[in-house]
């Protein structure tokens, strides 16, 4: 049995309570509730797929799966970042009460979004297997790894943006226009191979490209373009996580001064 110190226990209890609250406030008031988790990426896939199916050389089913996997990962990233960035300010009522582990606010938001992504992904894997794509133990290991890296990367981004946004409220504006641009430099709707080589190498500056390719490799057996660049992407996402934790820890001591 794992022994927790009282501080660790407090941390986990906060996380559970915040998760409960996040889920409750997210789904309780909407009519379709949790169904939106699967409904919204499907609608996005149909809408985008309907147009881009004419621009791709891929078969229809494989393009739709390709697209769906991209949308699911993209939604995880974008909705986490957009929700987290102003979250420290909107949760000021918690910070004004007592000392507590502030990073729980961010972790709970990202975890709820991760859960949504996992639900859609599992349904997608079932559909993919149905369409004849194999899913072996190997895939499962890769899948878990890719989810872990994605989680750390998104968490790192959210830590950085949310912590800096407390002092520099401009960050929220920047994030709001950065995210749509970010969408186009991530191979969500297109494949890296359609681009000229110079430009496609540039895409790997964006760690999300590597993470998405890695994710597709694991769930769709998608052949990836360059293992070396992908490895750099994974390292970069780890670096972003560590930087995020550092910035958040440093800034969180001063949060109360600015809210």
């Amino acid at each position, binding site marked *: 049995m794992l022994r927790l110190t009282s501080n660790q226990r407090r941390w986990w209890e906060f996380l559970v309570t915040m998760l409960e609250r996040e889920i409750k406030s997210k789904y309780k008031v909407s009519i379709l509730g949790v169904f939106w988790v699967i409904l919204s990426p499907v609608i996005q896939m149909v809408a985008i797929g309907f147009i881009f199916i004419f621009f791709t050389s891929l078969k229809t089913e494989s393009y739709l799966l390709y697209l769906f996997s991209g949308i699911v990962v993209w939604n995880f990233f974008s909705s986490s970042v957009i929700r987290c960035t102003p979250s420290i300010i909107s949760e000021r009522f918690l910070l004004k*009460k007592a000392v*507590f582990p502030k990073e729980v606010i961010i972790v709970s938001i990202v975890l709820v979004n991760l859960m949504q992504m996992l639900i859609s992904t599992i349904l997608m894997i079932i559909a993919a297997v149905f369409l004849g794509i194999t899913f072996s133990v190997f895939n499962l290991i890769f899948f878990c790894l890719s989810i872990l890296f994605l989680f750390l990367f998104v968490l790192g981004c959210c830590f950085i943006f949310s912590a800096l946004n407390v002092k520099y409220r401009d960050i929220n504006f920047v994030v709001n226009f950065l995210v749509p641009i970010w969408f186009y430099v991530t191979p969500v709707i297109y494949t890296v191979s359609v681009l000229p080589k110079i430009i496609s190498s540039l895409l790997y500056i964006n760690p999300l490209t590597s993470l998405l390719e890695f994710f597709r490799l694991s769930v769709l057996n998608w052949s990836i373009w360059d293992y070396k660049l992908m490895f750099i992407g994974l390292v970069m996402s780890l670096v972003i996580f560590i930087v995020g934790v550092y910035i958040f820890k440093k800034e969180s001591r001063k949060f109360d*001064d600015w809210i």
Partner: protein
Amino acid sequence: MKIGEILLDKVTKTYKLRRGIFFKDKKTFTALNNLSLKINSGDRLGIIGNNGSGKTTLLKIISGITDVTKGEVITKGKIVSLLELSAGFHPDISGIDNIMLNGLLAGLNRCEVIKRTNKIILDSGISDFIKMPFYTYSSGMKLKLAFSVAINSDPDILIFDEIVSAGDEFFIKMFMNYFNKVIKEKKTLIFASHVLEVISLYCNKVLWMEHGNVRMIGETMKVIREYKKAQTNV
């Protein structure tokens, strides 16, 4: 160090008035200026002083909500603070769900909160509204719920800012009952207020703050007398 003791050593707190990377000149405001203070276990300390004299900053620093710029704060024991009415509550979820959140913030664990929920609701006297979202509450109701959670989380040190003014007769009674209990149990209490009557009734020591520092500290009646004298001279 005894449980319930608080020690502040040369504490300075400055706020930056300008944020931003482009401004070179750093405008700052010093809320607390080199303040040293010792609060003994079982003291009931009233804090008085004009607006902007640093009362709330001092309370925030003792409860750990904000960090000091210079100096050191040492406290021993569980601190529960009531500084802002809606602090520690989420407006969109019900009172009963908020008890869990607030209880955790007050240092209880989940089991303890679940066990005490009924008592907290009973003490707060707002059982009719407990399932309603928190944003529907009046300030008096918010105060009662916050106070009820605070007193049910067995604190060693209790910190109140000027908030009692929102309460009705029921609350005043609840407040006074609890104060009497605090006196009996010898808990440390810190209470900032402009209502001198309440302070002279319940505090055994008063701290008079001015410009972020101690103007006077000592026996209740003496400090209040000096304070009143200074007020009439202005």
